């Protein structure tokens, strides 16, 4: 008799699944938008952004006009700096910084070359727009290195040291290597993280909306009086949305990221899709949670932004966990995206396998089970 029971459960499940797919398929605008998000939107993010300090626009005020001053200015060059033009009046420079036309003002005082030639040491001034604090810091750090190096070289030349002495100067030569993305290809990072973002947006919103819509229209009452259990109502919704979203991820990966941006898939694709499925499931739990708490879509919508925005921007992709205050870090550990991010980048770029990722995978799964169970019990209490 057990098998007859299972067949019935399976039939109900299949019927609900078909219903969910049909409902989704009829919202053409929504479908078109899902397609846009998983293709063009990711393409735009992946192709459009370069994150390094490159060609910081530099204006120069050279009061000295000596060979030395010209040479030093000549050393502020690509890739970090781009000397755009000379200017005379302080006012012009200030205006350029205010309007954002220039990021850096270099100012070499009169007598710069003479002081240097007499071994008295020389100074130059650099004003940096630190509206973007990291870039500002980097610009100053590069500038200091250029100036110091120039000072040492000209001092050596003044004291008549030969080229051989110069090569023998003590110092540290650093061979720097970058792993997992050797060419520092920003499109890999941007492309993958945008794909994860989009998947997250849909994983929270689609199931939440599918449930609240039934509540708002009252069709959930019909479902409750049917032989379906609360689990039998929620589960097919999550499964249907998971299918759509994982298909979306596949489209992004195979039609956009791999062919257009040559993202290397170092690990197993099977593992990646299994992990993605688990992730969508977990995140859908968060959406359902928002849906059970709210009475109508407007409420669910506002709650979803509240869940989504911190998830997306505090996931660790933009801001490392180390830089956050403790209470926020704990909040971050509760977000499934935090783990999925490590998992996805680990599989795709680092080639990590299931054994390496066991910890984040179980943590993510654990959150999923917890959230789904909580959502289910809330839902039950509401209607039973």
């Amino acid at each position, binding site marked *: 008799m057990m098998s007859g029971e299972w067949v019935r459960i399976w039939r109900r499940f299949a019927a609900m699944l078909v219903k969910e797919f049909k409902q989704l398929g009829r919202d053409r605008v929504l479908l078109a938008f899902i397609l846009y998000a998983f293709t063009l939107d990711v393409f735009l993010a992946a192709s459009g952004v370069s*994150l390094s300090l490159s060609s910081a626009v530099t204006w120069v005020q050279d009061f000295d006009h000596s060979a030395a001053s010209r040479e030093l200015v000549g050393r502020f060059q690509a890739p970090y700096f781009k000397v755009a033009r000379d200017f005379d009046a302080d006012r012009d420079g200030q205006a350029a910084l205010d309007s954002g036309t220039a990021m850096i003002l270099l100012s070499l005082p009169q007598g710069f070359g003479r002081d240097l030639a007499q071994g008295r040491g020389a100074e130059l001034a650099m004003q940096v727009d630190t509206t973007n604090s990291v870039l500002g810091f980097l610009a100053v750090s590069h500038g200091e290195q250029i100036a110091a190096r120039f000072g040492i070289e000209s001092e050596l030349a003044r004291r008549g040291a030969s080229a051989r002495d110069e090569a023998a100067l003590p110092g540290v030569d650093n061979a720097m290597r970058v792993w997992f993305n050797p060419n520092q290809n920003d499109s890999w990072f941007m492309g993958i993280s945008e794909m994860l973002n989009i998947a997250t947006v849909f994983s929270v919103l689609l199931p939440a909306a599918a449930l609240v819509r039934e509540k708002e229209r009252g069709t959930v009452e019909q479902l409750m009086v049917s032989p379906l259990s609360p689990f039998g109502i929620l589960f097919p919704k999550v499964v249907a949305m998971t299918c759509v979203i994982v298909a979306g991820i596949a489209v992004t990966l195979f039609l956009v990221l791999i062919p257009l941006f040559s993202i290397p898939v170092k690990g197993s694709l099977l593992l990646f899709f299994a992990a993605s499925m688990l992730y969508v499931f977990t995140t859908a739990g968060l959406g359902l949670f928002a849906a059970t708490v709210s009475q109508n*879509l407007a409420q669910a919508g*506002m709650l979803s932004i*509240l869940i989504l925005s911190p998830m997306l921007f505090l996931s660790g992709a933009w801001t490392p966990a180390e830089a956050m205050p403790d209470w926020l870090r704990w909040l971050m550990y509760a977000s499934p995206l935090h783990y999925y991010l490590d998992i996805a980048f680990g599989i795709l770029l680092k080639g990590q396998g299931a054994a390496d990722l066991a910890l984040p995978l179980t943590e993510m799964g654990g959150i999923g089970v917890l959230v789904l169970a909580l959502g289910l019990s809330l839902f039950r209490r509401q209607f039973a």
Partner: protein
Amino acid sequence: MKLQRVSAIAAREWREIVRDRLFFALAFIVPALLMLLFGYGLSLDVENIPFTVVDYDRSALSRDYSWQFIGSRYFKFQGYSDSESEAGRKLTSGQVRMTLVIPERFGHDLEAPGRAAVQTVIDGTFPSRAMTTRGYVEAINADFSRERLARLPVLSGMKGVVLQSRYLYNQNVSSIRSLAPKLIMVVLMLSPPFLTALGIVREKENGSIFNIYSSDISRGEFLLGKLAPYVAISTFNILTLWCFACLLYQVPFKGDFAFFLLASWIYVLCTTGIGLLVSVLVSTQVAAMIVTLVVTMIPSILYSGLIIPIASLGSGARVVAHIVPAMYYADIVVGCFLKGIGPGALWRQLLVLTAYALILFSLGYALFSKRPRT
């Protein structure tokens, strides 16, 4: 157009919003909470980068050199590793993000005196972090080399060239100072369109909009009345967010408050207009939510200069940046807060925003029809 009808619609909408207590509360709580979470969380300062050292030399000098990193606030020492392969494993597992390898003859080579080689490996998964890490490593190496040089007899008493740097607009180079004003931009981009789109599509989806279709209220009267409460809520939120930035994050406000308020208000009109346009185009609330989220959230963070400077954007993304109002408003808030510049320098941005609001509202007006086809 009759003012009386507009106010009747507005009063009705207001009552509906207020009666939905959770929604009403969220309309104010969401922006405040987002400002709080982003303000504390979205710090761009890269500090405490976990790293490990493989010291094959184990000399006094190599220890001294490692201490330049261990003692720096930018790095966080996670213990020595015995071999490069062990360090490599730590890097792959994400335990550390940088490894420093000091070869055997390091101390000897430096004492010679001459050049000593070291090797650093950086985790490049997140390029912006890798770039910053690289900058720190270079700076520490340069400092260390300079210090060794100064001990050289050839260079004794050298003065050298000193770069006097001055940080503008953000003297302590703390990222919250530069972020907080821009967060106002992000939060005002997120919540007003959402409120508006949901408010209008709700009527479409549950059919109550047919009351409007069959009444003699004109399109303009309906839209104005409908939008007014949402604009009012968002206007109040401008003030809340301003207080957050000034009082909680202690960002100095150097500009003209009246100008800031006016610009913010026009910006809110723009973002409300986006919500209006979305709500005219879609017919279900699900679609409204998703479309609004994708058109507002992602551009306002990625293409507004919040995290990535506009100058670093590629051509496609730069086009998006110029289409979305966020970038213009970002110039205004940053100008008002950090730079203390006013309408004299920012009138162009204000003009763009005004034009933007006008275009959105006329589009919404033109596309909203009291005689729907289906």
